[in-house]
């Protein structure tokens, strides 16, 4: 059984992008209740369309219903489950003990995946969830390779681990900093990321910070496959489609290379470079190989670099004039060196020679996000292909 690549989706477009770029399954939230209350999330109609799209590709959709619900949300929670079952979801990611019991009793054919909100850190806790109906556990992000291995060995559960994305400072589910500092309930999707704030101490002017770097396990997928991990999870339901396409596509390449026995240092280096360019924070392996330490966090509070590599998304192809039709995302201009990457995981490097507006007028600089533009390119590529900056033109000239 090949490991599953599981990707996050904040909306239907992201769902399609993830699946086209190589995710085997996606996890989504519905508008009513999910731990990313401020993501766009899905209507039930969109969820149904997303499930249909995924199933046509023989892929899966999991619904995250992992809020720690309060009494007043109980009925809504049950409605969410019923409507999501009707929409065709394949599994539910939950943390509330009652919901696990409720799903097992009322929808026995649906898989139950226990959310990382429960912070499972040992095999006995995993066995507990297995006994009450879980098919899969999403382990806490605080575990080492050997700890993960022991949990897999001592249970018959499918084990899902996070491989990429932002980290919480505290154990998931065991943090209410957001409630106390901003009155926003993190366990119902309102997390305000207080762990990325700065704090004064009574001692001196030095600020106390605890913001973690991101997780990146691209170099360790082979070991994780070898110990029997069932699913690799990418964090980030609020991430952009460019980020998701890049990250999912990159991990797809590495996973495929592992199974084809073609993984090389050169490929890993290239993938690392791509992942680092798309991220807005530095990354590390966090707890996988050693206890996380002082190098795995920042000391200056929130650290996020803006990323303007993403230039545009392909939305069509003019076969007659051999031009890519793109929707612009960031500023670019004639003579820029760019890369075009596709859902088939092909990458093309070229220099932009000409840029045309929709009405055919030639321009030299694209400076209006969302504007539809055309650039000459000999080969037709699928929609959702994307263009990113390779080198800035001033570096080329």
């Amino acid at each position, binding site marked *: 059984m090949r490991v599953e690549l599981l990707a996050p989706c904040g909306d239907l477009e992201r769902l399609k992008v993830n699946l086209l770029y190589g995710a085997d399954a996606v996890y989504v939230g519905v508008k009513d209740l999910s731990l990313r209350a401020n993501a766009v999330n899905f209507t039930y109609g969109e969820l149904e369309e997303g499930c249909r799209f995924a199933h046509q590709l023989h892929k899966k959709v999991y619904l995250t219903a992992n809020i720690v619900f309060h009494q*007043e949300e109980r009925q809504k929670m049950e409605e969410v489950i019923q409507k999501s079952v009707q929409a065709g979801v394949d599994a539910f990611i939950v943390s509330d003990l009652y919901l696990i019991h409720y799903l097992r009793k009322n929808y026995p054919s649906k898989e139950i995946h226990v959310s990382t909100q429960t912070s499972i850190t040992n095999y006995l806790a995993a066995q507990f969830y297995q006994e009450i109906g879980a098919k899969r556990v999403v382990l806490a992000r605080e575990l080492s390779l050997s700890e993960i291995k022991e949990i897999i060995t001592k249970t018959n559960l499918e084990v899902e681990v996070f491989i990429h994305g932002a980290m919480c400072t505290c154990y998931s*589910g065991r943090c209410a900093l957001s409630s106390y500092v901003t009155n926003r*309930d993190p366990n119902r999707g309102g997390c305000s990321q207080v762990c990325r704030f700065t704090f004064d101490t009574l001692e001196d002017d030095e600020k106390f910070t605890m913001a973690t770097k991101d997780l990146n396990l691209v170099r360790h997928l082979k070991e994780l496959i070898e110990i029997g991990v069932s699913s690799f999870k990418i964090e980030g339901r609020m991430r952009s489609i460019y980020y998701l396409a890049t990250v999912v596509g990159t991990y797809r390449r590495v996973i495929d290379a592992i199974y084809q026995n073609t993984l090389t240092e050169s490929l890993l280096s290239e993938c690392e470079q791509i992942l680092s360019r798309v991220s807005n924070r530095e990354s590390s392996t966090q707890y996988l190989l050693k206890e996380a330490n002082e190098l795995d966090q920042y000391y200056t509070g929130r650290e996020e670099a803006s990323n303007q590599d993403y230039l545009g998304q392909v939305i069509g192809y003019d076969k007659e004039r051999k031009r890519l039709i793109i929707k612009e995302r960031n500023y670019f201009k004639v003579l820029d060196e760019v890369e075009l990457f596709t859902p088939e995981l092909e990458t093309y490097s070229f220099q932009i020679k000409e840029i045309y507006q929709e009405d055919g007028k030639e321009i030299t600089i694209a400076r209006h996000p969302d504007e539809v533009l055309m650039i000459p390119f000999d080969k037709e590529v699928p929609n959702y292909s994307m263009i990113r900056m390779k080198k800035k033109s001033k570096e080329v000239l």
Partner: protein
Amino acid sequence: MKLIVNVNELNLEAYLESGADGFFLPLKDYATDYFVTFTKKEILETRKKYPDTLLYVVMNEMIFNHDIEDVTQILKELDSCQFDGVVFYDFALYEIQKKSHLSIPLIYHGTHLLTNKEVPDFLFKKGVSSCVLSHEITLDEIKEIVKSPMPFFITLVGLLPAGVSRRKLLSYFYQRKNQEKQEKTFLKESSTQIPLIAHETEKSTSFLYGKRLNLAAYFPLLSKIVAYGILRQDDLEKEEFLQVLSLYKNEKDPQKQSEKTAELIGRNTGFLMRKTIFKVKK
């Protein structure tokens, strides 16, 4: 309502005299969110010294594979010494109790996760004896949850747990400053000046909300609907804490009880009358 106190020493006479009905004893290496913990030996000796007092051992730290053998042994010893319960977070303890056929009562302290009636209903059927209510719920929510058949614990006084990390955050902070690590550091969020206290042990760093909870204003009602009230000493001086305890136990005039305790420890009622929000935009 029985008053269960968490204190910083094991000479319990003064607390019993001031009205404590029982004690939460945090076990070293296996309890988080407490400034003072006690070794297994100290706790076992306390049981011998106070055979008729309600004694609950707090083991609410995250459990890792390598802890399981030790935790199993500890639970067996606590079981044989007839403690009144073990306060747990990690369901590994539930599994150990079941697999080892132990009869020691289990008290689930899900910290932020006990926010509806269905979870205690479910746990009660699974054999869990009681639960500690989450601190981030309202009085109306408490009224609903306590309809569950099991008895509940509620914190009345104390610094409330706001987060636990496996990271040694104070070690990193002081190491970077080239200063000796403090076990406890007072923090204020830079823009709002909301206070937190960070506390590091060998296993974790916990954050406590810096404004002490005092539910005396609602004690007359809570004492009728919740079985056990928890009073945490935390960093209060002993004499001050004893006064608070005595007021909770002995002051019959609710207004005086509320005012006098407020003079000592403030009047923060937490989320009892204040809902948290979780959607900030449509």
